[in-house]
């Protein structure tokens, strides 16, 4: 028995360096819950936010230090794609934590659990970015999602928050069931010996024709399960409700970090694992992508709540990013999606920072609340305009370059119809984004201006500066992405 324990321990330690960032995050988050929580009394809980930011910075350094490699029975793989998307998740989480402080203070809802749950969920995302086995994909998704269910229902004395958590949970659990069943079918179709993505790619190509149905059903079920997680149409029903009911920083979180991790999983599962059987999934996935672009953008037009508008816009953005998955070119597709996601996270965090700032004064939920913002807060309104126009992809703003690289790739790979749909729906999206800009600049303001919190000013300024700087360097962004993460 001791021999077994020693063998287990040495097997775990041999590859532990590959997941140093996740191990660090989980250890620290556990220590934060106990004994860390004893050090701060009820009124000092907000101090956990800067501590969490420091933890995130250390994790980012660790991510850059981890060498390439594969470990844990080839369940986890560290390479350029993993590292790049892990950095995106960290960026999204850092934005969320910085945005949370003031809002939670004003609600008197500061707890250590909030920050610890963000860290646990982040650990799940970091696992997901590098998951190279269908089983580890499933477990990482669960670790990430279970923490987010709780965070969505965090304001438990608010009916809307609990309701949003409940809806998200029920649909999330349902989609996990479909995902696992799909994985079990693929496991069987590949001969019942492996779920490793690289092996599956070879095994599925060799499957006898009798198990074609197994492969087809399995691949489709995995597609459905993962489409639920990124909220792609027609599996998006939970997302507008969950976005609206969740505390706004968590809405920003859901729109950024988990999406980045899930897109990384999408790229790896469909780009590596199911590459050989692409004839089975290209058509369904392109329907999903097209439907997400159309429905996301069209439904956003008639929204009155800002959070719902951003929810539908994020559905549409997922549709665009799926173009990169479809492209079938693992490296170029991953880079284009990565760049798009980076730009999207910066723009979206900035837009949510503005919403949260207005919410601090009891407004900002509705689009009407942006009325006359241009008079009351010229700087804030300008920043919001930059974010919205960039989200719409209007040149020369940086959002345009993200779209440009993706669409160019899609055309090169022959997805002309989808690209035309993407272009047309981008034009629709400009309509509702400009609707908000119109509210800000062409309507008379109501009420008085109020000073802003330091963290919000910082985030808004930083995000706005990044978008503008990115704009100036747009044409070179893809080359840089190539140099930084794919050496």
């Amino acid at each position, binding site marked *: 028995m001791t021999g077994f324990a020693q063998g287990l321990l040495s097997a775990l330690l041999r590859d532990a360096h590959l997941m140093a960032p996740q191990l660090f995050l989980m250890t620290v988050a556990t220590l934060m819950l106990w004994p860390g929580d004893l050090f701060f009394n009820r009124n000092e809980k907000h101090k956990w936010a800067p501590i969490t930011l420091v933890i995130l910075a250390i994790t980012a350094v660790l991510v850059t230090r981890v060498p390439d490699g594969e470990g844990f029975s080839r369940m986890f793989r560290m390479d350029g794609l993993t590292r790049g998307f892990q950095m995106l998740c960290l960026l999204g989480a850092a934005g969320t934590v910085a945005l949370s402080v003031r809002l939670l203070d004003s609600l008197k809802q500061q707890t250590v659990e909030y920050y610890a749950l963000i860290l646990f969920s982040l650990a799940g995302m970091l696992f997901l970015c590098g998951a190279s086995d269908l089983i580890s994909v499933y*477990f990482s998704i669960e670790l990430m999602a279970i923490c987010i269910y709780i965070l969505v*229902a965090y304001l438990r004395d608010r009916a809307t928050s609990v*309701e949003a958590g409940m*809806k998200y949970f*029920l649909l999330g659990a349902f989609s996990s*069931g479909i995902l696992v069943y799909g994985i079990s079918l693929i496991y069987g179709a590949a001969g*019942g010996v492996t*779920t490793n993505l690289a092996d599956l790619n070879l095994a599925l190509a060799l499957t006898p024709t009798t198990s074609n149905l197994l492969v087809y059903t399995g691949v489709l079920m995995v597609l459905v399960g993962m489409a639920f997680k990124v909220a792609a149409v027609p599996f998006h029903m939970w997302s507008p409700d969950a976005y609206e009911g969740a505390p706004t920083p968590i809405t920003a979180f859901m729109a950024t970090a988990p999406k980045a991790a899930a897109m990384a999983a999408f790229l790896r599962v469909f780009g590596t694992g199911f590459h050989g059987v692409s004839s089975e999934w290209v058509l369904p996935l392109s329907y999903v992508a097209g439907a997400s672009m159309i429905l996301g953008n069209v439904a956003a037009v008639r929204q009155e709540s800002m959070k719902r508008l951003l929810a539908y816009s994020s559905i549409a953005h997922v549709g665009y990013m799926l173009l990169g998955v479809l492209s079938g070119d693992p490296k170029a597709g991953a880079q284009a999606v990565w760049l798009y996601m980076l730009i999207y996270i910066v723009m979206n965090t900035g837009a949510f920072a503005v919403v949260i700032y207005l919410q601090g004064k009891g407004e900002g939920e509705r689009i009407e609340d942006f009325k006359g913002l241009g008079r009351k807060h010229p700087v804030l309104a300008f920043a919001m305009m930059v974010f919205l126009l960039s989200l719409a992809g209007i040149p020369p703003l940086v959002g345009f370059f993200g779209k440009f690289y993706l669409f160019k790739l899609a055309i090169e790979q022959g997805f002309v119809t989808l690209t035309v749909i993407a272009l047309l729906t981008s034009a629709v999206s400009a309509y509702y984004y400009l609707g908000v800009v119109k509210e800000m600049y062409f309507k008379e303001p109501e009420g008085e201006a109020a000073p802003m919190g330091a963290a919000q000013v910082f985030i808004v300024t930083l995000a706005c500066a990044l978008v503008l700087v990115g704009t100036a360097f747009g044409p070179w962004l893809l080359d840089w992405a190539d140099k930084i993460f794919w050496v």
Partner: protein
Amino acid sequence: MVSLNAVLLVSFLLFSIGIIGVLIRRNALVILMCVELMLNAANLNFIAFARHSGSASGQAFALLVMGFAAAEVAVGLALVVALYRKRDTVQVDDINLLKG
């Protein structure tokens, strides 16, 4: 020995009952149980395929999936309790403050 096809048929039936249950039952607790059925159908598949091929990995996956199902139920029940305190109901049709 029971044939692989028989086990697959049982697991498919379990999965179908689970899916239909999630779609037609309106009680959050019953929906949770149906999700469990779906996960257990997958477990059955894993074990059947592992037995068939003689590799142990599928059996390990089934154990792991059971662990995650337990964690999921713990969070789910906590949410149901929170919802019941707030709204005095566990019927999903009554959860309608947010319009989807």
